[in-house]
């Protein structure tokens, strides 16, 4: 992709960018070489010593020998062989060990045991942060509980906030808890995070997010459908709807094409077997697929490019680029031509594009379009300089010669004559122009 070609010289020469050149000849690179030479010359002065001296020893994985990560691997691998053999010979013990005495002194069960201490909310939170024994059970009234919660939020320690929330969730009705949480944003977020972690309940986008865990496409589709009724923002609602519609269609197209492909009815599938299923692909990929395998179908079918374009409100540029990519890949140059051709009311045809023709040329070239096709589009590039540079890049002699002729640039024509093969048709053409033109 070429951007801003005409400005290129200015671009490279302005001080801002100059230093970014990577030409071998550039200053910086020469300096590097110079520096290397200097290094080498010094080397010959002193006795060569072992490189290892200044380059520390590292294992192949790159960790310095003796570092922790290196040692983890080393000590582990030395016993791995015996360890794994044993692993197989003993069945796993699945039963949980009986719950013995609690020696950690900080477990949740000990937290909720009633104690006789009377700590203020502030003291309690401090004790919690310090990992000391404390009790939440004495906070009985709603007001006390909320004071405790506010104190925990003030401490900004998520760990303590969560512990208090666990207690409140246990001891308050859902309605009460939610009513209070609404006015306490931070606590609410922690609560949501907590619920998310323990997978009790999901909220909107979180719920939508769950579809990523569903492998079966039909179940996934049904799940997305169930999401449609959720009160998303209008924006998100559109996207979820589109997502559902897309998957619904992909399932239909996939089933159909799979069947057609295996029955061997359609040439296109024989010639270009499908490499992967279209399920769960983005819409643009789906459109590409449709332009590749279902071009020319009537608007009515789900799989036709026109229908997809309309349903998913695909922009003109995206549609053109995707379509062009697919048809060029198939070397369907006639279709490519038709993409750009518009007729005016007098019946004259003209080529138009929502994207600069230089980009069209790039795409065609990447798809190995023949010179005849390429030069037609090179010719449509408006900027003369850009046109010539593209033509030179892709060896469209005619375009170059004609442009110089139109510019009446004799000098350039003579220069160019030196570049083409002597006696070739291009050569003869230049000769002809030069001899016909009057100085």
């Amino acid at each position: 992709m070429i951007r801003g070609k005409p400005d290129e010289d200015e671009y490279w020469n302005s001080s801002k960018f100059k230093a970014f050149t990577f030409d071998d000849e550039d200053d910086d690179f020469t300096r590097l070489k110079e520096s290397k030479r200097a290094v080498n010359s010094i080397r010959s002065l002193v006795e060569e010593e072992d490189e290892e001296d200044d380059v520390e020893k590292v294992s192949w994985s790159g960790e310095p020998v003796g570092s922790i990560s290196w040692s983890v691997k080393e000590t582990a691998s030395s016993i791995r062989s015996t360890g794994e053999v044993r692993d197989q010979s003993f069945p796993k013990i699945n039963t949980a060990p009986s719950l013995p005495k609690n020696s950690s002194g900080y477990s949740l069960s000990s937290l909720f045991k009633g104690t006789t201490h009377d700590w203020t909310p502030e003291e309690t939170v401090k004790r919690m942060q310090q990992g000391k024994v404390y009790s939440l059970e004495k906070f009985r009234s709603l007001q006390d509980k909320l004071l405790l919660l506010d104190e925990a939020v003030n401490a900004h320690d998520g760990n303590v906030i969560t512990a208090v929330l666990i207690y409140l969730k246990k001891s308050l009705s859902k309605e009460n808890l939610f009513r209070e949480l609404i006015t306490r944003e931070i606590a609410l977020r922690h609560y949501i995070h907590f619920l998310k972690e323990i997978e009790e309940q999901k909220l909107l986008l979180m719920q939508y997010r769950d579809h990523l865990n569903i492998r079966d496409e039909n179940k996934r589709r049904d799940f997305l459908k169930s999401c449609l009724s959720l009160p998303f923002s209008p924006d998100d609602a559109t996207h979820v709807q589109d997502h559902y519609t897309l998957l619904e269609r992909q399932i239909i197209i996939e089933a159909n094409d799979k069947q057609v492909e295996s029955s061997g009815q359609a040439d296109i599938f024989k010639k270009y077997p499908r490499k992967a299923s279209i399920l769960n692909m983005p819409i643009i990929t789906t459109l590409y697929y449709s332009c590749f395998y279902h071009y020319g179908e009537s608007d009515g079918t789900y799989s036709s490019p026109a229908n997809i374009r309309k349903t998913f409100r695909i922009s003109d540029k995206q549609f053109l680029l995707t379509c062009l990519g697919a048809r060029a890949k198939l070397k369907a140059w006639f279709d490519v031509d038709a993409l750009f051709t518009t007729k005016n009311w007098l019946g004259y045809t003209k080529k138009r594009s929502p994207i600069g023709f230089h980009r069209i040329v790039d795409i065609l070239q990447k798809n190995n379009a023949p010179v005849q096709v390429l030069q037609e589009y090179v010719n449509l590039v408006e900027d003369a300089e850009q046109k010539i540079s593209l033509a030179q890049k892709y060896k469209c002699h005619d375009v170059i010669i004609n442009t110089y002729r139109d510019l009446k640039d004799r000098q350039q024509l003579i220069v160019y004559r030196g570049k083409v093969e002597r006696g070739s048709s291009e050569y003869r053409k230049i000769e002809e122009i030069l001899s016909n033109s009057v100085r």
Partner: protein
Amino acid sequence: MSAHLSYGRVNLNILREAARKELREFLDKCAGSKAIVWDEYLTGPFGLIAQYSLLKEHEVEKMFTLKGGRLPAADVKNIIFFVRPRLELMDIIAENVISEDKMHSPRDFHILFVPRRSMLCEQRLKEQGVLGSLINIDEYILDLIPYDGDLLSMESEGAFRECYLESDQTSLYHTAKGLMTLQALYGTIPQIFGKGECARHVANMMLRMKREFAGSQTQILPVFDSLLLLDRNIDLLTPLATQLTYEDNLRGLCRFVYGVLDLCYVKLPPEKFAAQKKQVEVGKDLPTEPKKMQLNSAEELYAEIRDKNFNAIGAALSKKAKIISAAFEERHNAKTVGEIKQFVSQLPHMQAARSSLANHTSIAELIKDITKRLLLILVDRGKWIFSLFLSHSDSASEAFFDNLTVEQEFMTGVDTDKVNTYIEDCIAQKDPLIKILRLVCMQSVCNNGLKQKILDYYKREILQTYGYEHMLTLNNLEKTGLLKPQTSTRNNYPTIRKTLKLWMEDANEQNPNDISYVYSGYAPLSIRLTQVLARPGWRSIEEVLKMLPGPHFEERQQLPAGLHKKRQQGENRTTLVFFLGGVTYAEIAALRFLSQMEDGGTEYIIATTKLINGTSWIKSLMDRPEAP
């Protein structure tokens, strides 16, 4: 291994020693032989604190990586899990403990949570029925890890996401705790400045903690004169821009080629690693031992050049080469025995310098070469780019420059209120999503939000091309303010840019005279704020401060009598700058530049929740970056 920590203005080795002491104490709590089971993420940060030898001295005989199933056999008395407080890790521990063969190997289990124990995790262990089998549950408070002589990091990857997306401010609590530890070791910091919501919270917590510990005042002469707390969200632009310092290039290269990077080391295959395409592809199977270079100030030359703009590297190395050559030439002038003796005594140092120079010269050459051929070490680092660009190598550097041009257009405020055709093109070509998100966010930030119509357009294009599920990611970006609709008609970014001189037309990369050299023209906003605070003070930019989110403030902490520092004539001030939510290497480079300025008057120590770059940062905000 740690000498470089004590060379700086502030001896950070004290902090490291304190951390080692605590580690030893914990290990000694579990008497007898032991094996450590590592949460792999922690080995990097721990490597900055201790080597294996320290653990060995305390009877650690084996080390494993935490994974499901049965623990490997090891004839030890204790098994200690070193883990972050994460639920999924608790499930693995439970699996390990449950499948332990009680009859044959009665081993004691312990958990060391880093940096904090967590109620949720303990509850999970209880649900799994293993809480009772654990002898010791402890925490190892590793808040601030000394990363380099002037750099501390909490290595808390999720801090930005937690604070700005999930409103979980636990990392701020850890920050305040870490700063208290620092004050216990280096004395009370008399002045605290800050900008942003999170900064305010941290300062409040610090003041509160100080009141609570009022009895135990430290009698240490303050090392730091002031602390500056900065929210990442007051400067969202800087991390989005492509970084151009040597350090970032080098780290980018390694991440690019190997996909991993040790915290402070870089590994490079030997001599001819001058990246041939094939070799890059099969990089892993290289038969030879890779070179390892330490990436911190312990390496003298590296410390000198890492913060330079990549375009100035050639000149710097060449200058160095001349100096070394000249030094070697000195031997001809050494006539007397004394002179010869002196020359010989300097030889080892000169040889080390020579070899280091050789290494960096070949690295710099390599980076140039790869950049030329393979592009985009900087722009994006996804693996698949290789295959794509190997064949289109010419367009590679073109794409790189286009990307930089667009970034610079945004930063200078050119056409930020229109749909950008380059971004459109990149979407059409299905360039990596992270690259697109970076650019769109940058445009939004530089325009103080996008017009609703334009925002909708970008969103639709992204969802259509990359899949609807990325709705979740877009939603996250909107919540953090990286992407937003324009609410007022007034775009105040130009005012901020002009007042703070964020764009310098004549940035000099070779001989920088301003911090804007780090981005070839753009001066990071966060660092400008730091610079202005030192001189002439924030009062001069009140208006701009009000345009940035969150409050700005100044607090003073009382010093015990007799601890007031008497500054010598011409002595520099020392300021600790704490970036809440992450800092980039470019910002570090800019601060080091300010420290070194002759008439600067202030030296900076840098602390952060995490070292970030645009890619890692956006990735941390994505919903399931590796979704199937």
